[in-house]
């Protein structure tokens, strides 16, 4: 167990500890500020780290990445703005909780769940880094496609009551994902000769548009109807404290989310947004109170938050041993290793074992640091934010939506995308289409198409490749079983409703 001496050497280095705490705070702030992302912050801070010792530099950026992922949940809960792509699932229940004056409670649940998920991921990383890398290698395009298929089915539970509208929303998401270069032939699709469109539609502007701007539009409309009746964010006395009885039902969701996230993290490229949505969908499916999910269930915050943080640890395994970055942050970290003259690859654990385990130890301490700051600090922030009246808060959110969509890639075109998506999101809300289903399909469609077509190239166009490879077959069967169970569930529900009349 190399982690224990590594932990000891990190704890006894006060400057390193200070760097970890600083990084946790920086990450939280950038994650929580709509318009700043952890990956942008890391890219900006990268040049500074050239002058630091390797461990110092890596730990600093790694912890910013971790706490930034957590910080995204704060923006999701308070402003309904996903600070990171990964926190889009958190806002589904987080924002309704904030509107009900329970922002502090939601943020505490998010904090605890993030810590649980992140630690689970890191423990898996420390225990099984070699094993994880071996799994990642075994998964070729057919296996990855089968996993995408199973993911599609599992998160189908967010589609909601109207299957037609849910499916239509999902198809819309898939169509939007098609815009840009074909993943295999690199030909342009649905670009109408526009150079900007050939780059595809970015996830961040799309999400900010449909979730944030769409919500602002919807609120504007509902307020005009209710003339003069200003909706206030009322604050309950106990809105900010969290008791064990309240967290107890969240715990199984957080644990399951941790496993889902850690599993997804092993697979390079799927990423934390997918983990969060799968965990949310799976949690809702198994919940005792699914009708409350989406309207402000604490469990609905716990499930995705623990999953998106659990991705962080295991995704380091393919990064360090195979040089495959699972995220933007991963890609930048890879650069840091190389800039400091550390050769990433299977030999890393022979040549720089001590450094790697010290980095893992720093990561774990970073989790505790952001957890501590978050648990006690976030409530204060929440109190402050909730004092702002809605007629000030909404224009602020409106403004940050524009800043956020511009700053992610420094592109005016993204602002256009965000605005168009905003109107789209408003119309979808108005006519009861499922925005979450649209965004998830958008996220999944690209990878699913790419791996499907890669598999077909490998097999000369034969579909048998998915059946001949046992792992692929396993995940496909999982998906089919999930569909069957869902169909049975719906049939039962229909029967029950039929019996009760139109209740």
């Amino acid at each position, binding site marked *: 167990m190399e982690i224990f001496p590594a932990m000891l050497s990190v704890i006894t280095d006060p400057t390193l500890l200070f760097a970890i705490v600083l990084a946790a705070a920086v990450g939280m702030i950038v994650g929580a500020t709509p318009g700043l992302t952890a990956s942008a912050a890391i*890219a900006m801070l990268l040049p500074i780290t050239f002058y630091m010792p390797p461990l110092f530099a890596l730990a600093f950026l790694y912890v910013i990445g971790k706490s930034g992922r957590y910080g995204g949940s704060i923006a999701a809960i308070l402003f309904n703005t996903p600070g990171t792509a990964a926190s889009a699932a958190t806002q589904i229940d987080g924002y309704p909780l904030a509107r009900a004056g329970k922002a502090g409670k939601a943020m505490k649940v998010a904090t605890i769940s993030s810590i649980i998920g992140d630690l689970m991921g890191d423990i898996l990383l420390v225990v099984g880094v070699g094993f994880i890398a071996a799994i990642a290698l075994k998964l070729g395009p057919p296996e990855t496609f089968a996993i995408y298929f199973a993911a599609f089915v599992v998160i189908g539970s967010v589609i909601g009551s109207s299957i037609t509208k849910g499916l239509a929303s999902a198809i819309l998401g898939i169509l939007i994902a098609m815009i840009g270069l074909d993943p295999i032939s690199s030909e342009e699709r649905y670009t109408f000769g526009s150079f900007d469109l050939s780059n595809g539609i970015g996830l961040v502007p799309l999400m900010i548009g449909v979730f944030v701007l769409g919500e602002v539009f919807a609120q504007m409309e509902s307020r005009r109807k209710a003339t003069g009746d200003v909706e206030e964010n009322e604050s309950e006395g106990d809105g900010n404290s969290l008791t064990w009885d309240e967290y107890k039902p969240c715990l199984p969701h957080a644990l399951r989310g941790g496993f889902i996230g850690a599993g997804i993290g092993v697979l*390079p490229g799927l990423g934390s947004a997918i983990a969060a949505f799968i965990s949310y969908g799976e949690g809702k499916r198994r919940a005792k109170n699914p009708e409350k999910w989406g309207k402000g269930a604490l469990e609905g915050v716990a499930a995705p938050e623990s999953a998106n943080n659990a991705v962080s640890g295991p995704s380091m395994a393919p990064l360090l041993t195979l040089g495959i970055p699972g995220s933007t942050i991963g890609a930048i970290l890879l650069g840091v290793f190389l800039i400091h003259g550390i050769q990433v690859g299977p030999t890393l654990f022979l040549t720089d074992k001590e450094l790697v385990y010290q980095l893992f130890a720093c990561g774990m301490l970073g989790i505790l640091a952001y957890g501590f700051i978050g648990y006690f600090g976030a409530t204060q922030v929440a109190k402050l934010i909730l004092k702002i009246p809605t007629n000030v808060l909404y224009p602020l959110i409106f403004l940050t939506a524009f800043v956020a969509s511009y700053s992610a890639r420094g592109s005016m075109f993204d602002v256009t995308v965000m605005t168009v998506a905003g109107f789209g999101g408003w119309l979808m809300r108005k006519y009861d289409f499922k925005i979450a289903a649209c965004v998830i399909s958008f996220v999944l469609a690209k990878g699913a198409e790419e791996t499907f077509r890669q598999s077909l190239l490998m097999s000369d166009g034969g579909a048998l490749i998915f059946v001949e490879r046992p792992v692929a077959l396993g995940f496909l069967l999982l998906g089919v079983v999930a569909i069957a169970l869902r169909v049975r569930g719906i049939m039962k529900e229909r029967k029950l409703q039929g019996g009760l009349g139109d209740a």
Partner: protein
Amino acid sequence: MKRRTLIGAVVATIALTVSATASLAADWPKRPINLVVPYKAGGGTDAYARAISAAAEGVLDVPVVVVNKPGSGGLNGANSVVGARPDGYTMMMTSGGSFLLSTMTRDTKIDALESFQFVAQVGQLRTSLMVPKDSPFQSVQDVIDAAKANPGSLRWAHSGRGGFHHVGGLGFLANNDIEAQDVPFKGGGPTRAALIGSQADFGFLGVQQLAGFEEQLRALAVNSQDRDTIMKDVPAFGELGIPFAAVSSPVIVFAPKDTPAEVVAAMEAALAEISAKPEFAELLASRGTGPVYQNGADAKAGLTAMKADAAPLVEGLSK
């Protein structure tokens, strides 16, 4: 605030020797130089840019700031630089081969040879034929024989259609009159992982990608006349007598078309000095790459020759 150092004066002196009308060049640079990299941070070209930025200290008396503008296969960043103010404070460093090929296969107004001024080349990325360690193929000839015995039965991996690895691979297949099905992956890392996991029979990927993975992969040949300067153990197609297409990717610094000649010459001189510094080579060595300096005119001649070699190969690719 202007900081005139002794080293700054040295740069000015070099500029003087290169250019007759050095008054403008002596005045440049006054503020930080933005070096646009049209790829994500952490990639191969980005590493060159960051190494330049780090080694520029002491050569240029202003910082070189690396600005990543990824998207559209490198054209996004190129588009932003082609229209930038030609004052010498915005330049682009890109993977010349990929840039050339994307302007040939994509619908764009940019011409890799005409739309910019060539400042200098500072590095070279080469593609190579690799197989998994447990592959039955021990030599390039084994691959050719297997492909000839069963046309179309082999699968080969590369990092995306239209890139220089793909075109290099196409050139190898076409010149040796063999057929194989390509399987594109997204980027160098995933391609390498797919090859290690034996998802394809062989692959074309950057020869520097072998660094650290010698136990997982076997590089059969590098796609050039002579061996790579860093990965010296890998034989070259040229020495093996196997025909290939001379497609590689020189890492080139470009300046907007109307940048004053004095400024371009001063930057060229500065890049020559930076790429000769040992720190620059050290920063690159861990990635399996190294400095390969050529002046602007030679870099342009090299890319022009490559265009002629690649033209028949990319004809079938989309426009």
